[in-house]
């Protein structure tokens, strides 16, 4: 027994030290640039691959590692140049999405250059083994732990003793005051990104040595873990990042040792959610004065609670022409779209039906994230919930669509209200994290609750049944049902947003403390918007299940949530017509880009980047 405990504890310390390195990268950038850098995972992956290539060229592993760290630091600075600097006056969410776009490009680029397959990474110390009591450590474990510890110590010294380190901390606390000390604030942001790149590369190399392999998809899971560790410790706190990394590593290893390997991530994210609910500022977030981010990064991080305010704190000064068609115009367009089966092939109808589903999802999320300002990076879980409700009721219990639709709608609404509860008291970046954790927990349940969901195999052969005596088997009818539901949801959303309820949602988004002070029952309104959003997402999920006749966890990955939030931003926060438009466009884009073949995701990322750069207020404008 004690052997298992000791061995999992030691493993946890080793992997935790890697998490801590990744978390430090997040924390540095978050403190100085007030931005969650979603490209951190991509930096980790690139660092591992740079080292891999250099070793293939015949360089010794230490030299290759150092060169890779330097190269990745340069890539980190490039991220700042491309994702942050051009977007200083854009809404606060825009740079975050633009780092996501860069991550997409990096992942796809790595697959092109190095192939999507896993490749062996040399790990010279693996055969060296030390026994500690009943547990053992390999040379790689020891090297990882010692290198990580040394780097953390060095970083602490650098931040507290050197001119540049102190300037970094000053910039994190108050950039304008820092500038008046003579500190080049823009340079400090670049330094922070460079350091994040270097830390990411180091973590990547250690991970590659640990698993003795490199593969392009390695960035995402470690990026998320590092992010979770950073938040666990308090996003802007440097000691917090270290503590968070170690705690996360130890907890998930104990969980996998005692409960089973499948529960590793589930426990990690549940722990994260728990911390967010009890201590939203993270373990060392506030009250600890040596924290890096301080006042600016304590909890909300965005000076106002408004997500459409720019990073500078002022509301976006870019001109905001708002697309707001009359409802009948949107209905007329939907009616026109109903003619697609008459002119297009089955493939075209299938694509069009997919567009309708994503339009509903974008509509659903723009109510929650756009109008009410609760940024969600976990919406795919609600979409999946609706899809699984439909799949299980239709296939296992033979329910007809007329019963499934309300079950999926109201079931998901209730689920959404429940799932949003942990996030509801939070503001700013913490909300994004809580919803991310909820989304991951949802995905992991789809994946691991095998008795109910059949796990990774998914549920196939979902019958479409018949609605009001009409067989829903033909694709055209499914498509029309999807359009009908979209039209209905659009009208409901429009009515809600034009009513005092919609105005209250926007008021909460703009200034939550003011809404509280004005006597608005904020929590009730947020539960209402979450439920409404969930209702529409549930309908979209059911529709999706019928269309595909198959559901599996792969459809509800983090990537789906990211695409959905991208639709909301591109449509213009809170602009339902814009959301529908962006939903259709982004659902069409991968199809339209099929000609680019393996370059597809790169082009997709570039298009996203360009849109954020040149129209950060969205296609439809913020409403």
């Amino acid at each position, binding site marked *: 027994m004690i052997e298992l405990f000791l061995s999992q504890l030691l493993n946890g310390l080793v992997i935790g030290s890697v998490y801590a390195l990744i978390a430090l990268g997040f924390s540095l950038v978050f403190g100085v640039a007030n931005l969650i850098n979603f490209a951190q995972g991509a930096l980790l992956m690139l660092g591992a691959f740079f080292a891999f290539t250099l070793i293939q060229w015949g360089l010794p592993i230490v030299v290759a590692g150092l060169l890779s760290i330097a190269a990745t630091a340069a890539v980190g600075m490039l991220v700042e140049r491309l994702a942050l600097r051009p977007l200083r006056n854009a809404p606060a969410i825009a740079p975050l999405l633009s780092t996501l776009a860069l991550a997409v490009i990096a992942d796809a680029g790595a697959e092109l250059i190095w192939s999507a397959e896993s490749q062996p990474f040399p790990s010279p110390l693996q055969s060296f083994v030390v026994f500690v009591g009943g547990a053992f450590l390999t040379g790689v474990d020891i090297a990882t732990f010692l290198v990580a510890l040394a780097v953390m110590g060095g970083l602490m010294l650098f931040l507290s003793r050197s001119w540049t380190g*102190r300037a970094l901390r000053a910039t994190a606390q*108050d950039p304008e005051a820092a500038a*008046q000390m*003579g500190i080049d604030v823009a340079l400090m942001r670049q330094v922070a990104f460079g350091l994040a790149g270097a830390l990411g590369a180091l973590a990547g190399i250690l991970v590659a040595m640990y698993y003795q392999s490199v593969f392009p998809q390695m960035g995402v899971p470690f990026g998320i873990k590092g992010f979770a560790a950073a938040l666990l410790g308090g996003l802007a706190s440097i000691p917090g990042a270290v503590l968070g990394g170690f705690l996360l590593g130890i907890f998930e290893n104990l969980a996998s040792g005692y409960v089973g390997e499948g529960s590793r991530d589930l426990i990690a994210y549940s722990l994260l959610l728990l911390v967010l609910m009890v201590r939203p500022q993270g373990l060392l977030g506030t009250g600890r004065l*040596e924290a890096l981010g301080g*006042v600016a990064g304590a909890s909300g991080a965005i000076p106002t609670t408004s997500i459409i305010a720019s990073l500078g704190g002022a509301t976006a000064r870019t001109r905001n022409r708002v697309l707001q068609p009359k409802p009948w115009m949107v209905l007329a367009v939907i009616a026109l779209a109903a003619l697609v089966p008459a002119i297009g092939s089955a493939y075209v109808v299938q694509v069009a039906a997919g567009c309708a589903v994503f339009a509903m999802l974008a509509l659903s999320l723009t109510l929650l994230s756009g109008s009410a300002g609760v940024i969600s990076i976990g919406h795919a879980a609600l979409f999946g919930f609706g899809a699984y409700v439909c799949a299980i009721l239709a296939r296992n219990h033979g329910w007809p669509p007329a019963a499934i639709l309300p079950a999926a709608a109201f079931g998901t609404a209730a689920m959404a209200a429940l799932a949003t509860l942990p996030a509801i008291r939070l503001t700013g970046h913490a909300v994004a994290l809580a919803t991310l954790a909820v989304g991951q927990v949802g995905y992991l349940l789809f994946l691991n609750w095998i008795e109910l969901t059949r796990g990774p195999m998914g549920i196939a052969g979902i019958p479409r049944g018949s609605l009001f005596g009409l067989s829903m088997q033909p694709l055209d009818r499914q498509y029309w049902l999807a359009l009908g539901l979209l039209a209905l949801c659009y009208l409901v959303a429009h009515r809600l947003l034009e009513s005092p309820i919609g105005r209250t949602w926007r008021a909460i988004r703009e200034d939550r403390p003011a809404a509280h002070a004005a006597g608005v029952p904020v929590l009730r309104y947020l539960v209402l918007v979450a439920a409404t959003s969930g209702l529409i997402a549930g309908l979209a999920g059911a529709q999706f299940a019928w269309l595909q006749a198959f559901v599996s966890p792969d459809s509800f990955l983090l990537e789906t949530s990211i695409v959905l939030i991208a639709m909301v931003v591109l449509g213009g926060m809170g602009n339902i017509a814009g959301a529908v438009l962006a939903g259709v466009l982004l659902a069409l884009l991968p199809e339209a880009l099929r000609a680019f073949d393996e370059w597809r995701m790169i082009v997709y990322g570039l298009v996203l980047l360009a849109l954020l750069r040149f129209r950060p207020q969205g296609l439809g404008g913020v409403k």
Partner: protein
Amino acid sequence: MADPFLSIEAIDVFYGPVQALFGVSVTVGAGEVVAVLGGNASGKSTTVKAALGLVQPRQGRILLEGQRIDGLGTHQVIARGVASIPEGRRVFAEMTVEENLRLGAYARRGDPPAALAAALEEAFGLFPRLAERRRQAAGTLSGGEQQMLAMARAWMRRPRLLCIDEPSMGLSPLFVDHVYDVLARWKAAGLTILMVEQNANMALQLADRAYVLRNGAIVVQGAAAELAGDPELRKAYLGG
């Protein structure tokens, strides 16, 4: 007044579509203390921010010792021998008093460590209260102590021009007197100062010359002693 140390020449400043300054010109001679006065939203803070490079003028130019500094970043202006005591003090709340002071000397980071250590001790000599709280986080100081810290921090720069935005804001009368005592000593030592102040009576006792702004334009300027009784000054504050 042949060769002013700082010369702001007919600048227009905009915040988005809103114009904040209309052709404002201010000069500060070497060794002179110049006050910019005015009521709320008169543009007085914007004037100092333009000199510091925190906002950029759309028209006009700004010269420091005959060299153009408009268009430079704030850190570049500071590098030319300027220090700033920002509005609302803006101390680095989570750093210690000593770290704040060291950051004040950031522009002098090339100087020998012994010189910086000596400057630190001088600063503590100037403000004994700060010496007692040397290892304390700046955010735990009282408002008055924070103002002392902001002043000491700017002094660490060894500036040739000191820009001050509202030194008396939010301070008790006792601390206001203390602040002005220190400023008077610095003036006597020959420091060139550009200050913005709501408290016109205090500022006019210290300053050599003053400008009065209203709605983003200068309405009256002249020697401090003459301005004290000027009806335009009253109008600028009462909005008449």
